[in-house]
């Protein structure tokens, strides 16, 4: 049994099955990301200026990553064009660059992530707030929150073996605050010296010397993790979902590039179709990033 129009286009629609399928799938993806972008707008409109962090993401790294993705889209298309002109070796080269770009993007993203997981904000009981880094035994502390300071009893399994040793409560810890807090910018109008100082220091921020902070003075402590604020919640949700798409796209493209390339010998037309379909998906993923970058990093 042969399913019609698997490889050749149907004359009246001008499409082969997989192309129509991927476009329908992308339509649903548009609605998925559309839902999240809408949520971003709703959350942002509802948030007060002090609670919507600004300038905490690294713009040079983000820009670089954006151009990595744009470059990968270009190489996908060039690889496809090369294959259409029967130049398999050239296609292989271009598509290898695509895969490397995808992996590069993901590694850079993971560095950005780990940067956030070791960066903290403290809400003091007297109402002021500070961002900065926490050091414990000379190492950066990961994923702390208010509950970490209270300590936790040991976790035991059913047989009584200790799965996770008890952590003692922390009364005081070492904190290196950043020069400015992101909400300062919201308090000053643009053009005033204070704002200028903030802009200068936001990225190349020189840290102040480490200070001792007492747990008793703290109302809330959170790393820049999703629970920190709705901004980081939507930032991590959107970028993680996008990162998942990048990963899936890279795996598919790598499969077609590597073990799937046998098809080029037996059914070249279908092989070119596969490149096109995976390329369409890849373009969609990159297009999402083109929108994500300004709304998360700049605005």
């Amino acid at each position: 049994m042969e399913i019609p129009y698997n490889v050749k286009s149907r004359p009246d629609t001008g499409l082969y099955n997989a192309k129509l399928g991927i476009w329908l799938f992308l339509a649903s993806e548009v609605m998925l990301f559309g839902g999240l972008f809408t949520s971003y707008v709703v959350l942002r409109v509802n948030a007060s200026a002090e609670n919507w962090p600004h300038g905490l993401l690294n713009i040079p790294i983000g820009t670089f990553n954006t151009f990595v993705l744009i470059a990968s889209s270009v190489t996908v298309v060039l690889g496809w064009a090369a294959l259409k002109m029967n130049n398999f070796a050239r296609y292989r080269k271009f598509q290898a660059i695509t895969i490397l770009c995808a992996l590069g993007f993901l590694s850079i993203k993971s560095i950005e992530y780990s940067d956030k997981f070791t960066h903290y904000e403290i809400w003091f009981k007297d109402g002021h707030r500070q961002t900065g880094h926490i050091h414990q035994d000379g190492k950066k502390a990961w994923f702390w929150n208010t509950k970490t300071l209270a300590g936790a009893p040991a976790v035991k399994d059913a047989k009584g073996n200790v799965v996770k040793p008890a952590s003692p409560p922390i009364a005081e810890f070492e904190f290196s605050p950043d020069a400015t807090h992101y909400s300062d910018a919201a308090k000053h109008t643009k053009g005033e010296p204070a704002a200028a100082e903030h802009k200068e220091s936001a990225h190349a921020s020189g840290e102040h010397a480490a200070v001792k902070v007492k747990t008793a003075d703290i109302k809330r402590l959170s790393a820049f993790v999703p629970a920190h604020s709705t901004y980081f919640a939507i930032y991590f949700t959107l970028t993680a979902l996008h990162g998942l798409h990048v990963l899936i796209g890279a795996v598919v493209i790598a499969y077609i590039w590597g073990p799937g390339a046998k098809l080029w010998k037996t059914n070249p037309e279908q092989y070119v179709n596969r490149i096109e379909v995976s390329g369409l998906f890849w373009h969609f993923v990159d297009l999402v990033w083109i929108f994500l970058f300004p709304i998360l990093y700049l605005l």
Partner: protein
Amino acid sequence: MSLKAIHIVFISAAMLMCVVFGLWALGEWRAADGTANLLYLIGSGVGFLALAVYGWFFLKKLKNVSYL
């Protein structure tokens, strides 16, 4: 819509993003006057031009491929 068509859409969107980035950098630079912002401004302009040139080449090279 073929890969060619969406690539053109994509390059246009990327150019648009360069414009947005440039405008943002301009605003920041006028407000705060940092060298980093000036670099962003110049960089986004260069990016815009590079993408425009590439897009033009691309259209010329793939003249014979259908948009459908």
